[in-house]
């Protein structure tokens, strides 16, 4: 094997108590497309930030073109030929393509810009004049410009962070061809960072896998490794402790029929989704975030009112109606975004506690503060919330207590239907446990629960049935008894055997 163009050894980086990178080794061969696979939070982005000089690691060595680098910083990394495309584009919208491409002082095509642009716009099949303003381009086209920017500033090593997240399937296969051409003809070294299994198999020649800040597999040859093996590496052992599932299921409470939704970028974010949930049943929704979960919850809960298809709560058609119609039929929604959607930042604990049922504390235009306080005291007692000062801002509560307040507020009226999105994300173990208990109790009381989660442990523990969302479609539906973690993992990555 030849000398790697870039080699890092034993890289460690901690944030507070969290070990983001734990003695990670990583190396790249010139002219090869590498894949870096891992779940959200596995440490992929942290590693890339180390390589591009943004994070200074506490330990480890970095060698670029066999030269040891003592202290990398963004400018140095860039001059050594390391370039990165971030998930959020760093383009100047009001500038033309040409201005964006030639902005860097490292620009190598100053004299013969036109020929270079002709060559690379053909490789990327970008059919816009270089005088087009970037703001007039589609998302996919912007991405092409973003990658071309690296070429124009002579980056030999191109780090691409989730480049396909914003692309249509056609654009994705086009990108694949472009990257192949770059690696073969220009000998560019490319790293594709992703959690999509299918793409890593399609795009790359060699694969690295990260999990929990560690590099769990190095330099696997793409054509030799199986999907199953990659899933195991990426997800690790999953404990499938299941709670009693022989509870009584009653009549259908929530029915979702043929829901389709096209967003402002004309992407089909939801595609013909149908399911129903009975009383006393938890339906788990698995999937990597960004595959339509938020949109699905918003459709069911009345925040997104324009869509195709039907939503029925207790056989009442609420399609096209708003949030209040759902509240009347006693649907509760625990949104993924706790502070910002579920709770209003900068507003008091007391005001936040009443968001679901404040109209019950009103007499005409008058709002009874006494009733609100009583209601909050009930919540505090029943859900053991620690709120030192109810008139203080909501951010005075800890994350766990915020979530308990939010859950309590949504659950105290014993709702018919509950939609809970990522209810335990970011919480510590004991808070997770008490949130799980709340959901189970509510199910036993006869609620129909839609549980959206990225955490497979949680889904296995709580759900009676699981559906997997992939690119806005239900790619798999299984009963918990017959579910198996590997096939779910594959389905989450878009592979359904």
């Amino acid at each position, binding site marked *: 094997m030849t000398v790697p163009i870039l080699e890092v050894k034993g890289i460690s*980086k*901690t*944030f*507070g108590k969290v070990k983001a990178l734990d003695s990670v080794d990583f190396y790249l061969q010139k002219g090869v497309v590498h894949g870096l696979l891992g779940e959200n939070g596995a440490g992929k982005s942290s590693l890339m930030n180390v390589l591009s000089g943004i*994070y*200074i690691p506490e330990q480890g060595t970095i060698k670029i073109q066999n030269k040891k680098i003592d202290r990398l910083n963004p400018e140095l990394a860039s001059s050594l030929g390391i370039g990165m495309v971030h998930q959020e584009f760093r383009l100047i919208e009001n500038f033309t393509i040409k201005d964006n491409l030639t902005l860097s002082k490292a620009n190598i095509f100053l004299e013969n810009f036109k020929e270079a642009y002709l060559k690379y716009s053909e490789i990327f099949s970008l059919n816009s004049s270089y005088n087009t303003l970037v703001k007039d381009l589609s998302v996919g086209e912007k991405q092409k410009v973003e990658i071309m920017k690296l070429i124009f500033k002579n980056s030999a090593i191109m780090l691409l962070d989730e480049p396909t997240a914003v692309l249509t399937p056609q654009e994705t296969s086009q990108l694949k061809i472009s990257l192949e051409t770059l690696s073969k003809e220009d000998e560019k070294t490319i790293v594709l960072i992703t959690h999509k299994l299918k793409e890593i198999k399609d795009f790359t020649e060699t694969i690295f896998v990260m999990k929990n800040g560690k590099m769990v597999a190095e330099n696997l040859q793409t054509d030799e490794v199986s999907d199953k093996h990659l899933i195991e590496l990426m997800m690790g052992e999953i404990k499938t402790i299941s709670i009693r599932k022989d509870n009584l299921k009653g009549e259908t409470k929530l029915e979702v029929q043929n829901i389709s939704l096209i967003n402002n970028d004309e992407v089909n974010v939801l595609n013909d989704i149908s399911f129903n949930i009975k009383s006393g049943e938890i339906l788990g929704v698995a999937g990597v975030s960004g595959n339509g979960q938020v949109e699905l919850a918003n459709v069911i*809960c*009345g*925040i997104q009112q324009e869509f195709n298809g039907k939503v029925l709560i207790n056989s009442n058609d609420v399609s096209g109606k*708003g*949030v*209040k119609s759902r*509240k009347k039929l006693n649907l509760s*929604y625990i*949104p993924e*975004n706790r502070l*910002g*959607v*579920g*709770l*209003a*930042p*900068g*507003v008091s604990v007391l*005001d936040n506690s*009443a*968001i*679901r049922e*404040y*109209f019950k504390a*009103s007499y005409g*235009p*008058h*709002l009874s*503060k006494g009733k609100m306080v009583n209601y909050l005291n009930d919540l505090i007692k029943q859900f053991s919330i620690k709120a*030192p*000062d109810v*008139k*203080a*801002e909501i*951010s*005075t509560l800890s994350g766990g207590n915020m979530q308990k307040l939010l859950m309590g507020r949504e659950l105290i009226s014993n709702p018919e239907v509950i939609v809970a999105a990522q209810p335990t994300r970011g919480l510590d173990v004991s808070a997770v446990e008490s949130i799980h208990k709340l959901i189970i109790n509510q199910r036993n009381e006869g609620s129909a629960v839609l549980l959206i989660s990225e955490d497979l442990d949680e889904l296995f523990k709580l759900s009676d049935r699981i559906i997997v969302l992939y690119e806005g479609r239900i790619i798999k539906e299984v009963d918990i008894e017959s579910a198996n973690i590997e096939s779910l993992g594959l389905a989450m990555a878009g592979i359904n055997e």
Partner: protein
Amino acid sequence: MNNYILSKKLFRNELSTFYSFLIGFIIALFVGSLILLIQDKNPIDVFSLMLKLSVGSINSLSNSLNKAIPLILAGLGISIINSVRLWNIGAEGQIFMGALALNFFYINSSIQNSALYIFLLLTASFIGGSICILIPALTKVLFGVNEIITTLLTNYIVFGLTIYLINGVWKDPASLNFPAAAYVSELVYLPIIVGKLSSGFLICIIFTLLAFYIKDKSVFGYEMRIAGGSELTAIYAGISAKQKAFLAMLIGGGFAGLAGGIELLSQTHRVSTGISQGFGYTAIIVAAITGMRPLGIFLVGCLFGALTIGGSVIQTIGVSSYIAEIIQATTLFGALVAQFFFSYEIKKKVENG
């Protein structure tokens, strides 16, 4: 290396706004004293004279309170609009527009000697203030245009409109070269309660309580708070954040318009450029000092009214009336700095990369 960071305090003393005001006011008196000393005046003499001539007699006290009326009403309007976390810099224009609308209604109706007629005139001024903020409100909710800019710009438009009217169609020939509209009939003057105190002050008290009720005790006030906290939370709760913002702006504009109407019927008795002497801008200071609390706005409004009167009378002993404005502005500055230290603390940085 910068080893210290500012962090937001989780808990604040409930009276912190009041303390901030006191601290600001003390700093302002101190700064004012320094300026007086530079001018070889004895600050104690000047301040006691100001005190005597602004609150020392029924007449001077009622002058002070009359001055407070537009400050309080416009300040209340600003505080209602701030419930949805929007800033109204256009109270000055709304005050003028209130007076213009009142005069328009007055000219185009038959004058009656009745309380109902005066009520209708004042209603016209309220609506005038709402109309004045209508364009900033619409552009805000429809296109998200920054309301600070648009409300500020409407001030210039309305002031220009006022100049146009009092030099043109409304110009009173009897006023000779002074540009002003004709005086209104004595029948529509607001009655005096005591001394020189206009009954506009009673309206002011009623509207203070009304603003307090709207902000603190009503469903609408609650919905405004949630909408102001987070538009997404409002949508999630089934509250139309845009509708609340729109209504808050119209109501707040109306409060300032009413101030213009009262000023016309109780002080100037005609439309001229003297309808407001920067009340709409001073009202921003009053509202900001009190942390947008209606009862606080009432009290600080009264104090600032007295300061304005005190400032104008000390000119007789050769001290510029600007000393009053310096005190007002420095109070705001000091109070904001004090509020900052009540809300934040300086902490040693914790090393976390």
